[in-house]
């Protein structure tokens, strides 16, 4: 098994005004290729901070964090941006760009990485097919339902063939039925396409659908359980 993510004794301290806040107080774990993992915790437990670090959006205060064997804790801004191509980020609020259609949104990561146009089209459609949106490729995000938007976001995260999908509250803005469907999709992607998925959530039901759960509290991992 190859490790896609290795977190070693990571801390993160924010300054709230002049008061230092320890959001992470020494977190260590690793994730293997093909895993489906949830990071579960109440708000304030430090899971969002951890999410930002895993997503290469931010650097830890101390400790090391390897994505695909590369230590991202000391990279420059530009190298860090490069690393984000290894991470398929799915945001809680979908974060689609409203003026672009489904294809345009899915195309963004490829466009950013500078891939030639003719190669992109096929990959974009392939990614949309994987999430079951092959029929809605030219709809603007305002014309899509919440569940569909989230699928576009998943397709966008998949299109770059990242090391792992990193999902922030993937069901947080969906009704329970759509949330079910979303989780079915995630499990399916993991089962059939061997996509490594890390879900950050506060929802126990979501965590129940994953094979492994890291439970966080007060900036630490308090439980690492295989369901």
């Amino acid at each position, binding site marked *: 098994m190859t490790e896609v993510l290795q977190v070693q004794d990571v801390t993160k301290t924010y300054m709230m005004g002049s008061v230092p806040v320890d959001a992470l107080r020494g977190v260590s774990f690793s994730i293997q290729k093909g895993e489906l993992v949830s990071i579960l915790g109440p708000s304030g437990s430090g899971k969002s901070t951890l999410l*930002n670090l895993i*997503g290469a*959006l*931010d650097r830890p205060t101390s400790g090391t964090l390897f994505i695909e064997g590369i230590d991202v804790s000391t990279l420059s*801004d*530009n190298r860090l*941006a*490069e690393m*984000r*191509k290894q991470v398929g*980020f799915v*945001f809680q609020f979908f*974060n689609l*760009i409203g*003026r*672009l259609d489904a294809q345009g949104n899915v195309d*963004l*990561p490829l*466009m*950013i*990485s*500078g891939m*030639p*146009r003719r190669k992109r089209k096929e990959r974009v459609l392939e990614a949309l097919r994987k999430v079951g949106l092959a029929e809605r490729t030219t709809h603007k995000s305002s014309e899509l339902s919440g569940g569909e938007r989230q699928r576009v976001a998943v397709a*966008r995260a998949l299109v*770059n063939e990242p090391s792992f999908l990193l999902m922030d509250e993937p069901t947080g803005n969906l009704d329970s039925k759509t949330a079910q469907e979303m989780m079915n999709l995630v499990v399916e992607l993991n089962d059939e396409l061997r996509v490594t998925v890390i879900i950050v959530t506060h929802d126990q039901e979501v965590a129940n659908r994953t094979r492994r759960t890291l439970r966080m509290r007060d900036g630490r991992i308090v439980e690492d359980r295989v369901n």
Partner: protein
Amino acid sequence: MNVRDTFSYSLGAIRLRKLRSGLTTLGVIIGIAAIVALLSFTQGFQVAISSQFQEGLATDVVTVTSGSGTFMSSPDEESDFALYTNDTALIGSVEGVLLSSAVSSKQVTAEFDGSDQMLSLTGVNLTAYQEIYSTFVTEFGEIPTSPADNEAIIGHTIYDPWGNGTHPISVGESFNAYYTVRNGTTLVPVNITLTVVGVLEEIGSSAFGPSDTGLYIPLGSAMDYFDTEEVSRIVVKLASSDEDFIATVSSSIEELFFGEVTVNSATAILDTMESILGTVEILLAGIGGISLLVAGIGIMNIMIVSLMERTREIGILKALGAKGRSILVIFLGEALIIGIIGGGFGIVVGSFLATIFSSGMSPMGGQGPSRFSSSSSLTITPVVTPTLMVMALLFGIVVSVVFAIYPAWRASRLMPVDALRSE
């Protein structure tokens, strides 16, 4: 990101906010249009003036008038020094002078077919005048070698004011002219009856020498009629039109009269005019520049607002792997597009405005009397050179991009975590 993608992404962002982008672009259009209109108009003006001088007056001719001042001197300081006919002999003794001839002129009212025109009646030595000015040639009739006192040569516009073959006066016909003098408390017209013996060829606009709206009679006859011994000016033909030569001879003539006369050459006046116009041009370009500066600040303002609105979008792009540089280029791309569109339209609008200005300034041919009064008005054709167009476009682009640098730089520096958190 490759160039084409960046460009289409920027264009998409511009098109999303049509009204705002339109207004921002309008700022650039106005700035560029102002510069193009003002500069092309001034250049057209300059060309018109230069060509008028060049065609109207032989460059080897200087004009001697009394008074030590330049044409800017105030009336208070005007000297009572007068020039007389025989001063030509004195001027003729100066080395480099080929020929000199006295000219006496006065505004008179000429009566043609019941319509009165204020015209300049000029007494000249017809033979000498022909030698000095190559434009003093007749189209109809002839210039008599030993003219009778009442024989007159008329300018082409007097003969054909409307350009439609209706002639108020033609060769062989006579007309009356008068000027008014004060005799105690009453005003008395002084009349003269003149017979047209020649019509000059069309000269075009000209500030010096023969004019399309001039009346020319023998010098002696004019001085009798004007009841004066003094002459208005002495025109002098020099051996060369070389600028230094003209300057040397001019100062010799001025010294000869102990500085009581002024010698003007077309070249010197042209130089002065050109330097004045140059200054005017800089001034006008400055005004255009200011409006472009305002447009630039508008762009900066809009981009900063847009940056705040799009913080989240920037965060998304960054989270998807966009580097700061890509964000910078996207924002600068938007400014570039605005600059190109604004510059392009600005050139078109500016050229159009310049054409409107100049048609407003030029005489509207065919309005009869106005042709007489605007004897020396210019026909200005705005000059929009390719250089001016390229410069204007570049200027528009540079201003847009320069003012976008700061907002774009700020956008590129946003931390993805902070940017994503913003609503």
